[in-house]
């Protein structure tokens, strides 16, 4: 599907796009508003994410990046807006989504082992009553192997380093064998080896025609890791391929005075030279 032309900051006042979401978009959001109390954290956002691509959701702290993801998934309630996944309402497409929450969102002293966390990704398929069988365990181990954690399968999760915790969360998502992977800051506070391991897994997913959407905070790695960007600061600022939308004007519009202009130019330069 063709990406819509870049939406610029000037467009921000628009309230709602009535256009029906494209059938093949892994995730299409229209008119999404989320508020904490009376203050919108995300206001009337439209977003259509590209299939078979890696998209970064970018914006300053408090811009609503994680909120956008959580509200789309129904983790937090939305005031308005519709979300479709592969052309169907999200409630009827849950099995096609895998979500990797922020590491800090759980209690790592919870009594469970690494492999048990990965098996949580299979609960939906196993159901309430059926026993967890050898085949399930093999699947979980294979997913752990893909993130380089097979040797840690029977460790208590409290013994893991931050990067290892993040890998276990990713392995749990892999166990779901989904078509759309949504990750909330997977690279936050992890070591360099883990960052490489995670990006390798994500690129492999893309190569298998899965869609990947990451909330991302490190502007320096956007070009190396992602194909598409979605810029947000409460409202949508811009969306498109990295070449189209990851420009100094859009970054300035997203971050305002918070990012030195020189810094933005430095980040955007390589891409503009290419194009």
């Amino acid at each position, binding site marked *: 599907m063709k990406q819509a032309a870049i939406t610029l900051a000037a467009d921000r006042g628009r309230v709602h796009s009535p256009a029906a979401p494209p059938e093949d978009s892994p995730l299409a959001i229209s008119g999404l508003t989320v508020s904490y109390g009376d203050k919108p954290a995300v206001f009337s956002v439209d977003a259509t994410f590209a299939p078979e691509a890696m998209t970064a959701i970018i914006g300053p702290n408090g811009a609503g990046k994680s909120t956008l993801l959580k509200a789309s998934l*129904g983790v937090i309630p939305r005031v308005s807006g519709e979300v479709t996944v592969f052309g169907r309402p999200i409630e009827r497409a849950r099995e096609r989504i895998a979500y990797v929450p922020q590491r800090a969102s759980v*209690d790592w002293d919870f009594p469970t082992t690494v492999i048990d966390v990965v098996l949580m990704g299979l609960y939906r398929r196993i159901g*309430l009553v059926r026993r967890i069988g050898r085949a399930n365990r093999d699947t979980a181990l294979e997913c752990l192997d893909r993130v380089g954690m097979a040797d840690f399968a029977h460790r208590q999760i409290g013994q893991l380093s931050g990067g290892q915790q993040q890998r276990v969360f990713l392995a749990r998502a892999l166990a779901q064998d989904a078509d759309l992977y949504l990750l909330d800051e997977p690279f936050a506070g992890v070591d360099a080896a883990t960052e490489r391991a995670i990006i390798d897994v994500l690129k492999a997913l893309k190569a298998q025609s899965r869609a990947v959407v990451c909330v991302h905070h490190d502007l320096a790695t956007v070009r190396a890791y992602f194909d598409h960007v979605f810029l947000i600061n409460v409202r949508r600022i811009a969306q498109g391929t990295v070449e189209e939308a990851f420009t100094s004007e859009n970054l300035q519009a997203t971050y305002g005075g918070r990012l030195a202009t020189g810094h933005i130019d430095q980040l955007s330069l390589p891409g503009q030279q290419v194009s």
Partner: protein
Amino acid sequence: MNPLAEALLLQAGYNAALVGIGAGLLGFAAGAAGTFLFLRKRALVSDAVAHATLPGVGLAFIVMVMAGGDGRNLLGLLAGSAVSAWVGLWLVQWMTRTTRLSEDAAIGAVLSVFFGLGIVILTVIQTMSSGRQAGLESFLLGSTAGMLFNDALIIAIGGSLAVIATWLLRRPMTLVSFDPDYAAASGTNVDRIDLAMMGLVMAVTVIGLKLVGLILIIALLIIPPVTARFWTERSDHVIWWAGIFGGVSGYVGAAISASAPALPTGAIIVLVAAGLFGLSLLFAPARGVAAAVLRHRRFQWRVHRRQGLLAMARAEPIHDPFTLRVLGSEGLVRRDGVPTDAGRAQAAKIARDERRWDVARQIHLDAGLTGRYDGLTPIEQVFTPDEIAEFDARIGGPAPVATQGGH
């Protein structure tokens, strides 16, 4: 036979046997059902639920008397307590969600107001002329006097249902307790699971009211899971261990209270549970206090041993008395602080390992391995023998260590 052994073997009479079996079953059900409450960190909500049962007991009594009944029909009283517990629970949820009150404030408000209301209603009942009101206050602290077969049957059936429901919902409840965001994102209805969790707690509270009383029931819901947590690192094992700890507490507690006159059953059960908790806190293998102290002492010992040997290798004097004691007790230094032959050999080995680590960090490419240098990990645990031989080749010659003492 002494009275306690008699009670434990169910030989202390029909009533004592009923109480023992009932308390054991109740303990098992409460421990299992309370596990996820503890893991979800909502233990205190059950306290609000328990206290909120009291007005229901009183109102149910009044309604049954006005309808011309006895007023003390147990099922009727339990139904009343369930309704008012539900209202209390709903109020806690509602206040937390729609106002800025935090959950602990909402719990405090509901708990005290419902309890106060319940006491007022019970006082009013005392002044009523009709009905046989005696015995209602036993719902506060529990009572085993006059326990009937039907009472034990209610506990057995209700408790079994609670355990089965806990088992059936163990996966969604694990998911919601560990990672509610992920649970919601993968399509689990978190509110409904939370409600089910609370419903289970309420069910156990209601069936346990008569025996243990509403003030102490929270102990049976919370202490067994907390105790079980010391012994296992897996949530599904916590359920069964909590059930066993709860069951043992109930059974043994009931037996103790039956073995002597005028010992309050509910309170004794709670004290037995607390005893098991205390033992676990102190002596559990991995998480217990004793194990932690032991681990720390061993670690301290290794650090001092290593530092002492390094100082010895550099021919530096050792002043720290603990280091001298460590080295002395392993026969590495003499009483006057002079290294023994064994000490010199160990020091040379350790000095050589330090050189090996230096070389390893220069030539070995895997930062994951060289990063494991922490001063204590033996180099043989990190590198293979051929790798170590390679380091030695680079160091060259026999160990270049100043083993000759002298200052």
